[in-house]
């Protein structure tokens, strides 16, 4: 009998047949995008021909047919899925559209996400807003029904969906995984309305906590289900017609196989399964060669993919991303970057060589393809270096043009002022270092040391580069599989039939026998479902392996670990072992001491992986014998610094056991294995090539730093910065950090000047410089800074933005000298003082706010000063969370210091410090050039801050930005004196506020080296003013007020400045969501624990309009690239509240040709807690509209907070109604909260809040009328605005063009009729 594997790729369909003799037969045929089943059948015919049988006989003798398909991925990317609707809980219809604010940066690399004017949500969304229906129903965090399901409403929605031509419906209700009955009943009703509707329920598709990810998973399944169903039906019929008698098996992203019927029901499982084949091949190869730990690297033309196999199993992730949508599914983890053979090399304006991320693609492709491409690529460099035979590319199927490659490389060499070979080798080195960095991030980021692994290299370019990036990683062994096509497809053939089931039922420690019984019961239920499925496939329970996995975390943390539990009935001893295993795994991944067991554990979800054992595939031994080189060729190796006459071997002729010493090149049909000097190649018994690498050599550089080493070391420093920040975010226990990333980390030079900072809260970047300066001043002056020291401060007059921001700083020593600093600042939830959360509403100065400590030594020569931490924690209401954050900071510092040490060891101190200097020079050069290109001039703005925490006074901010040549001056003269309250900012907030706008608007493509920007800037701010406050001003709100007023002023001025340049206009934006509207809830939570928490719904203000597009609705703050608004379920799980609705608010944006993004509105009530909740509001822009519009656009609206006392909201919910506006609520009274307020919420009270949008751009009368109508239909603006501000006349939902033109002319005429000359007004009031 035969076994077949067919994997449909973008270009080729790879096919493999495993006959009884174990010698694989392969075929490669073109993919047929119109109907991929044509390509599959062509592949089957090709295999049948090679086997020597008619297709019908061949398929009749085939017992297993495994299929990997890209139909789902293609349908998603090309938006060719089913016309899909969403049915969700009323009041939460925008959940899918807003994407937790975070969607704008999902799937975007750290290097790209800093370009904020280019960030967008999924466009277009898979389901537009008009196809989302809400229905009254509500369940709470315990699974209790708060509002019954409106069945008539479901039926009405179903009828409307059918009328709209809907083919598939995703049903996703809040907390449905705790009580799925509402979703099930809704699905029944929808099927009654139309039995042909494809209906997917979130509690079935992804029964886990987190309504956004649960819903996206369900939408993806609904969207892709019908096209996958159609395709698989067609393929099954064609195979069956030609003689195949068994069940078609489909490759799943989970790493297993499933019957085609299951791929239809949960299509998301087959999504993005293509790259998984290579990892499964690694599993297969590892089993054959007795290797359990493998790093799988696939180097293609445009991308580089990395996966990990540990213990013989692929590592999986549970919240993968596809096309901007983060969803929930068990998926083999693959990490990718845009690096490959087609990556284009280029020289930037400072004379530094860069490679990628742009690719030449397949057409025109690299210059050497001879298809018109002229840009140098990695493939051209490899050809010039002699690694590739121009006549043997693609097995001789295509001859490469060496002269074209040389010409392209010469252009790069000329720009760099170096020779051709040096340039080509530089391109290779940079690509190899990028790939090594991704492997490091993938392995070290998960707590693995790459040196403990075998590196597997495949893909067209992998064998050419594998030995080099392996050496960079310190890996000792590289394996190049015998045949990449057969390798991936064989991996699929060897994969088990796999069924993954999940359940979510949060449980907290202490864990006793009751919990053990519940867990046993959950797994037994999952096991019976799994075994029933296998029984239907004819597989006996005895042939099924069951693996029970619990996902758990510390109660205050978000990062989960998978821990296995044994089969059978669980007891307390099993749970004790579960706890111990978790703590050990956590410490192993995040570092010794990072586990904070005192926090207690939370069991989050339960996963069962059920796999049917498959017959082991045995491969026949490969042939060959000891051979001599077939020829020699000149190839360039940096070890010898010149061309070397290099032995060339036909790899398929090399016999098992023969050793070949590098330098050598082993040529195969589809690739070339480069064996560098010092490396030994051998071939094993089944044709795989093993490379044994020499001990890692250093590449110490002395003297002048060459541009290629600079680029390599610079990228490494950048990667270290990414790693240190993510280390901290993973360990922290506060949603402010792990969900909203209110922190930042940086690397600074020996003088304390910033070299690079992370893509998190940008206003922290310059505070780090100041904090290091403060430490040097305090301790350096007395020569008291030592190796192993760590310092801490929360002093805003030193470097913190406000006292909640605790900064930890470490010197990095080399040979006894300080050569660098690493620093991290992180917001702690409460640092003491009279007000929970430490935003000291009512304070008059720092003495009445909270403790502030100047730089203190937290660690002396490596010994921790516990008394310092104890003193700090003693003042806090949240000592456990603060302690956890302190561990996060220390781990971050430890990682950064270790990595910098490794870098110094490898490249030498001169290369590292030289790179620090050059990064700063590069940034200075690039940005000063950019400034030079902008016309000289002055741009002004003013804005207000309302309420100082005591009185509702309006304070003013003024800014004049003057740009002359290559310099820019920020002059804040005229800004109000510092206030007698908590809103002031110090120098650190002032400088941070400038950077928060300057970095994303002008520095979007360079490291954030603030040290390089300093020489370009002058800042004028009078001491004793609102944003340059002196001691003892109150400033616990410095981060959201003193900083924000600066940021708003700067962003508006820069928006106008950039718009004055034709070249830089596309970077111009209006002001984003101007001020926070923070709500802190405090008191006791529903579990009786002390609580002081910021509700981060307030992250969802609107983004500023761009010069070419509307601002992002609910796009967040400019200063926080990575901000996220948490799931409603996340809030309700932690805090005693219920969010009645959360949706976009009409008319919060600034209207304009391009409007600002709108902000969010919420209504929440106390829930499941009879105790009053302390409700603290810290906001601005309550009295005055901020976020100014520019060039004739209007500003965004004010924001606000209304509390309806003793309302009927709970009664309405119980009666089956969900109010969607305060006007639908009856209450005894309404309190309009002041901008800073401190009140209480009692049972029955309802807090209604809305958040400002972003400023607009250009005259609203210039807006495309069609966009105005779209906004009206989506509920983003009101009819009065449509006619009064936009002058658009709408008839039956359509624009009346003639009437609109007339209306607009009428508005212009009215404007002029109402107006008077400005000079008259100036005569009365003057000018600024």
């Amino acid at each position, binding site marked *: 009998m035969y076994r077949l594997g067919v994997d449909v790729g973008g270009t080729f369909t790879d096919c493999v047949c495993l006959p009884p003799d174990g010698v694989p037969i392969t075929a490669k045929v073109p993919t047929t995008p119109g109907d991929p089943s044509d390509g599959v059948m062509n592949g089957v015919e090709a295999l049948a021909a090679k086997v020597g049988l008619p297709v019908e006989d061949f398929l009749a003798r085939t017992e297993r047919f495994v299929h990997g398909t890209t139909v789902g991925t293609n349908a998603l990317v090309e938006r060719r899925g089913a016309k899909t609707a969403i049915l969700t809980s009323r009041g939460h219809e925008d959940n899918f559209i807003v994407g937790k604010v975070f969607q704008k940066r999902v799937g975007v690399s750290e290097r790209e996400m800093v370009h904020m004017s280019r960030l967008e949500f999924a466009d277009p969304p898979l389901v537009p807003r008009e196809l989302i229906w809400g229905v009254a129903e509500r369940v709470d965090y315990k699974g209790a029904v708060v509002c019954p399901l409106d069945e008539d409403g479901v039926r009405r929605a179903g009828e409307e969906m059918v009328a709209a031509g809907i083919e598939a419906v995703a049903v996703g209700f809040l907390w449905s995984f705790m009580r799925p009955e509402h979703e099930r009943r809704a699905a029944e009703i929808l099927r009654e309305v139309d039995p042909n509707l494809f209906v997917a329920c979130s509690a079935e598709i992804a029964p886990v906590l987190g309504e956004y990810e649960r819903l996206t998973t369900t939408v993806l399944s609904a969207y892709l289900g019908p096209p996958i169903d159609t395709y698989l039906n067609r393929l099954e019929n064609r195979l069956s017609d030609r003689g195949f008698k068994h069940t078609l098996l489909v490759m799943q992203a989970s790493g297993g196989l499933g019957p085609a019927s299951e791929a239809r029901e949960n299509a998301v499982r087959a999504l993005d399964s293509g790259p998984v084949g290579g990892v499964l091949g690694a599993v297969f190869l590892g089993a054959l060669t007795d290797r359990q730990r493998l790093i799988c690297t696939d180097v293609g033309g445009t991308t580089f993919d990395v996966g990990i196999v540990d213990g013989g199993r692929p590592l999986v992730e549970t919240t993968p991303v596809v096309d901007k949508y983060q969803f929930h599914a068990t998926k083999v983890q693959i990490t990718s970057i845009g690096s490959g053979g087609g990556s284009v090399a280029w020289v930037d304006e400072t004379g530094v060589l860069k490679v990628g991320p742009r690719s030449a693609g397949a057409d025109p492709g690299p210059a050497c393809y001879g298809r018109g491409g002229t840009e140098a690529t990695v493939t051209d460099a490899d050809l010039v270096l002699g690694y590739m035979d121009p006549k043997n590319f693609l097995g001789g199927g295509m001859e490469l043009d060496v002269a074209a490659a040389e010409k392209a490389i010469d252009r790069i060499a000329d720009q760099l002022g170096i020779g051709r070979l040096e340039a080509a080798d530089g391109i290779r080195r940079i690509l190899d270092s990028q790939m090594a960095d991704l492997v490091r991030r993938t392995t070290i980021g998960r707590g693995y040391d790459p040196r403990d692994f075998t590196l597997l290299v495949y893909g067209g370019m992998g064998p050419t580069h594998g030995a080099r990036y392996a050496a960079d990683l310190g890996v000792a062994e590289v394996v190049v599989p015998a045949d990449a096509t057969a390798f991936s497809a064989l991996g699929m053939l060897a994969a088990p039939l796999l069924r993954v089931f999940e359940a979510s039922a949060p449980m907290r420690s202490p864990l006793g026998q009751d919990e053990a019984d519940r867990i046993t019961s959950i797994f037994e239920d999952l096991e019976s479902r799994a075994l029933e499925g296998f029984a239907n496939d004819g597989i006996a329970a005895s042939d099924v392996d069951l693996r029970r996995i619990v996902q758990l975390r510390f109660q205050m943390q978000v990062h989960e670990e998978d821990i296995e539990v044994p089969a059978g009935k669980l007891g307390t001893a099993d749970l004790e072992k579960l706890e111990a295993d978790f703590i050990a795994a956590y410490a192993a991944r995040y570092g010794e001491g990072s586990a904070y067991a005192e926090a207690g554990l939370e069991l989050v979800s339960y996963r069962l992986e059920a796999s049917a054992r498959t017959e082991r595939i045995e491969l026949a031994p490969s042939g060959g014998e000891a051979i001599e080189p077939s020829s020699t060729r000149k190839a360039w190796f940096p070890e010898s610094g010149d061309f070397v006459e290099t032995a060339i071997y036909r790899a398929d002729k090399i016999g098992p056991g023969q050793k070949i010493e590098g330098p050598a090149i082993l040529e195969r049909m589809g690739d070339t294995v480069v064996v560098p000097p010092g490396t030994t190649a051998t071939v094993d018994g089944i044709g795989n090539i093993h490379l044994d690498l020499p001990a890692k050599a250093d590449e110490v550089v002395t003297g002048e730093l060459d541009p290629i080493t600079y680029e390599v070391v610079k990228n490494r420093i950048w990667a270290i910065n990414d790693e240190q920040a993510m280390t901290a975010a993973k360990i922290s226990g506060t949603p402010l950090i792990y969900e909203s990333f209110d922190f930042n980390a940086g690397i600074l030079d020996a003088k304390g000047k910033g070299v690079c900072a992370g893509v998190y809260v940008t206003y922290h970047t310059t505070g780090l410089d100041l904090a290091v300066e403060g430490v040097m001043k305090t301790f350096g002056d007395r020569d008291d800074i030592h190796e192993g020291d760590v310092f801490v401060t929360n002093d805003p007059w030193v470097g913190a933005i406000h006292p909640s921001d605790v900064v930890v700083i470490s010197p990095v020593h080399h040979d006894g000298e300080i050569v660098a600093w690493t620093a991290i600042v992180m917001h702690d939830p409460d640092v003491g003082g009279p007000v929970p959360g430490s935003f000291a509403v009512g304070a008059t100065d720092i003495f009445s706010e909270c403790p502030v400590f100047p730089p203190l030594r937290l660690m002396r020569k490596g010994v921790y000063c516990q008394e310092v931490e104890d003193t700090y924690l003693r003042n806090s209401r949240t000592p456990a969370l603060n302690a956890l954050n302190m561990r996060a900071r220390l781990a971050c510092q430890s990682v950064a210091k270790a990595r910098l040490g490794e870098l110094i060891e490898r490249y030498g101190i001169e290369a590292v410090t030289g790179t620090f200097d050059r990064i700063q020079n590069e940034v200075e050069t690039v940005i000063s050039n950019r400034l030079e290109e902008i016309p000289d001039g002055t741009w002004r703005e003013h804005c207000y801050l309302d309420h100082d925490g005591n009185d509702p006074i309006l304070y003013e901010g003024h800014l004049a930005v003057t740009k002359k040549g290559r310099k820019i001056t920020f002059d804040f003269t005229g800004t109000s004196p510092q206030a007698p309250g908590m809103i002031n900012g110090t120098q650190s907030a002032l400088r941070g506020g400038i950077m928060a706008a300057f970095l994303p608007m002008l520095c979007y493509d360079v490291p954030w080296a603030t040290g390089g920007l300093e020489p370009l800037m002058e800042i004028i701010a009078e001491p004793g003013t609102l944003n340059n406050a002196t001691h003892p001003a109150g400033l616990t709100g410095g981060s959201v007020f003193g900083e924000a007023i600066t940021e708003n002023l700067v962003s508006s001025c820069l928006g106008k400045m950039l718009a004055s340049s034709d070249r830089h206009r596309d970077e111009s934006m209006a002001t984003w969501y101007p001020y926070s509207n923070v709500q802190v809830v405090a008191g006791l939570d529903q579990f009786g624990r002390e609580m002081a928490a910021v509700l981060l719904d307030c992250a969802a203000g609107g983004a500023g309009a761009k010069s070419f597009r509307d601002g992002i609705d609910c796009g967040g703050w400019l200063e926080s690239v990575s901000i996220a608004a948490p799931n409603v379920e996340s809030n309700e799980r932690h805090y005693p509240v219920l969010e009645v609705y959360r949706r976009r608010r009409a008319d919060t944006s*600034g209207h304009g040709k391009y409007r600002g993004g709108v902000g969010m509105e919420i209504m929440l009530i106390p829930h499941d807690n009879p105790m009053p909740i302390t409700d603290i509001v810290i906001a601005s822009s*309550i009295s005055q509209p901020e976020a100014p519009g520019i060039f004739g656009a209007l*500003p965004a609206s004010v924001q606000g907070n209304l509390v309806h006392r003793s309302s009927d909201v709970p009664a309405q919910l119980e009666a089956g109604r969900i109010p969607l506006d305060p006007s639908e609520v009856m209450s005894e009274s309404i309190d309009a909260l002041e901008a800073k307020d401190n009140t209480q919420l009692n049972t029955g009270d309802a807090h209604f809040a809305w958040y400002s949008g972003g400023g607009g751009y250009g005259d609203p009368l210039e807006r495309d009328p069609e966009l105005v109508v779209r906004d009206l239909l989506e509920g983003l603006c009101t009819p009065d605005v449509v006619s009064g501000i936009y002058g658009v006349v709408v008839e039956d939902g359509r624009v009346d063009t003639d009437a609109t033109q007339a209306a607009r002319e009428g508005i212009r005429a009215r*404007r002029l009729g109402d107006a008077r000359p400005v000079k008259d007004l100036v005569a009365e009031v003057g000018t*600024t």
Partner: protein
Amino acid sequence: MSETPLHAVGYAFNVFDAGDGREFRCARCEYTFGPTTTDPKLGAVVAERSITESSELNRHGAVDDLVLREFYCPGCGAMVAANIQQNGDPVLREIELD
């Protein structure tokens, strides 16, 4: 002097060479606001309105203390700037090019 703009400033203005210097003109109707060294707003006309006219939500704000100043091109009525300020505050100069 040139009849093609040297460059634009947002969507509101174009900058032209006027022979003895540069000048701002309306991007919609080419009305001349004046030399680029002076904020073009000073060559515009202005209407002062309630802040509720830019958003009905602003009724919750300090309606009596603040004013919405809308600046229009005298030639065509295009809105070229809009500021919210306290009643009686000086006119905000926004853009001046050397």
